[in-house]
């Protein structure tokens, strides 16, 4: 797969394009313009970036106030702080008050690697899924990031988009269509389908190649929108595959996996299912790739998980 750039850089470039066209587009940062790769943006459009300092609660509250006056606001902050420190502001000032703020969680999941759990966001899907009126998106590659940011700009509701900072491979064909709430099927596989989101989609795609070598037909769905979940795509995968593996850079509790399991169970679809993510333990120290490898979020790791699941299913 051809390597693109970090989704973070794709986000910053897309935002600058949008902001050039709209003087009412404002970016709010919490001392995070550097980590948000917004240096060029700040130079090009100094009047369209507002600094609030290291104060995430105030970042989100102010974003709601600015949105109330018709500003098109992107509040940009590390995902870990944005969704934990400012959770109540997201819940009340943005979601409950129905202010269409775009909440951008940068360096999400375990992107900060060895900086440790204070800097990881493994709770954000779970926390925000339980909040009414905020959509959740985790783009997998540059294409999905660009499209998600553009879609968020026109989105009528509050939305949270999170991504990491490592360069991502290009995953999509040029004519792919992106829509919030509509999953993208990358491959179909009669044996197993990976339902992955964000930066775990790439290893899931590669896992299909590993499985193919063992004669196992594997598919991948990029479930970039965690809420609202594309139930149709999920049910379709459940009908066309013998087993499902969900993959996410998030706690195994309360995220994509449990969201999928809930849909399947309540629709009466009982398929072998494995939820791959970060287990409920003190996360191992390491870089993002090392943490992924430790928890089996690699092509080989995911292939092994799928094989075990299929073996159980066959037994």
């Amino acid at each position, binding site marked *: 797969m051809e390597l693109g750039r970090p989704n973070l850089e794709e986000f910053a470039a897309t935002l600058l394009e949008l902001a050039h066209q709209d003087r009412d587009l*404002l970016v709010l940062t919490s001392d995070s313009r550097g980590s948000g790769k917004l240096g060029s943006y700040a130079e090009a459009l100094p*009047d369209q970036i*507002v600094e*609030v*300092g290291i*104060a995430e*609660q*105030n970042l*989100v*509250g*102010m*974003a*709601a*106030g*600015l*949105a*109330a*006056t*018709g*500003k098109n606001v992107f509040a940009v902050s590390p995902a870990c702080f944005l969704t934990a420190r400012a959770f*109540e*502001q997201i819940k*009340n*000032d943005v979601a*409950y*008050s*129905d202010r269409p703020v775009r909440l951008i969680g940068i360096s999400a999941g375990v992107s900060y690697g060895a900086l440790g759990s204070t800097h990881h966001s493994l709770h954000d899907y779970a926390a925000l899924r339980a909040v009414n009126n905020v959509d959740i998106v985790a783009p997998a590659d540059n294409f999905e990031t660009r499209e998600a940011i553009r879609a968020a700009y026109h989105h009528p509701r509050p939305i949270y988009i999170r991504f990491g900072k490592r360069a991502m491979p290009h995953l999509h064909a040029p004519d792919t269509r992106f829509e919030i709430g509509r999953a993208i099927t990358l491959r179909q596989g009669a044996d197993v389908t990976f339902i992955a989101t964000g930066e775990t989609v790439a290893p899931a795609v590669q896992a299909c190649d590993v499985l193919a070598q063992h004669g196992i037909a594997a598919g991948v769905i990029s479930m970039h929108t965690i809420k609202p979940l594309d139930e149709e795509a999920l049910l379709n995968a459940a009908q066309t595959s013998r087993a499902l593996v969900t993959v996410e850079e998030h706690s195994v509790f309360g995220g994509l996996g449990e969201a999928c399991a809930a849909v399947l169970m309540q629709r009466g679809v009982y398929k072998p299912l494995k939820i791959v993510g970060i287990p409920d333990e003190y996360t191992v120290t390491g870089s993002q790739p090392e943490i992924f490898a430790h928890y089996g979020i690699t092509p080989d790791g995911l292939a092994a998980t799928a094989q075990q699941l299929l073996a159980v299913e066959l037994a």
Partner: protein
Amino acid sequence: MDEQALKLKSIEYRKTILTIIHHAKAGHTGGSLSCVDILNVLYNRVMNISPQNFSDPDRDRYIQSKGHSVEALYTVLADKGFFPREELNTLNEYQSHFIGHPTRKVPGVEQNTGALGHGLSVAVGVALSGKLDGRSYRVYTLLGDGELTEGSSWEAGMTAAHYKLDNLVVIVDRNGLQITGPTERVVALESLEAKFRAFGFEVRTCDGNDIADLINTLEQVPFETGKPNLIIANTVKGKGVSFIEDQIGWHHKVPTDEQLADALAELERAQADLVKVTA
């Protein structure tokens, strides 16, 4: 509206607040009675807000951070004609829009509040937008004194001064009591004036239950060009009803039938006295 008319309105508002809390069997009696003179002067004398101009981008804005005193806000909005007065009787009822904290489902409410320490950040955002667009509106926000222990208020305050938001008017309903006891015994706030000055506000203190003093203070805004305005409005929790005034227990106590009758009688006597003095 002149001072006398405002004074009479305050008494009417107090009667309504007590009546709807009694009817709903829930509400924040003490805080609504302490802040209602402030809302009265804002809505009937100072702010450019009405049902007719509520979608005008140049209207003034009011954000009530101390959301629990919602009965005062709903009462004033009803009187301003944002919705029929009878709707106040649905407060807290099943499927009512009149939730026990401010909600945009109720016409005239600018922002949903209720969790403390949120209003000032939102107000700062609205005020900053006004500055960016060169609009003339002002943003008024009412904070409870008890909520000032929320750190987010100070994050917002720092930012207001940094962006020189002299179109922002922060009013602290300084009634001195919170649910556990006097603010100075819970976690001391004083010196509030020195704290806000240190954060870059220009500060004035007034009697927040005195119509003339409120008018005089609010009409001096902006206190200093380039600085956010802060008014410490010294009030009495439960103001206007002798047996409710300054009583911690009345934070969210609901009047009994008898207490309501006594309170309304006391307020009507005050009303009669006021009319007599004028005549």
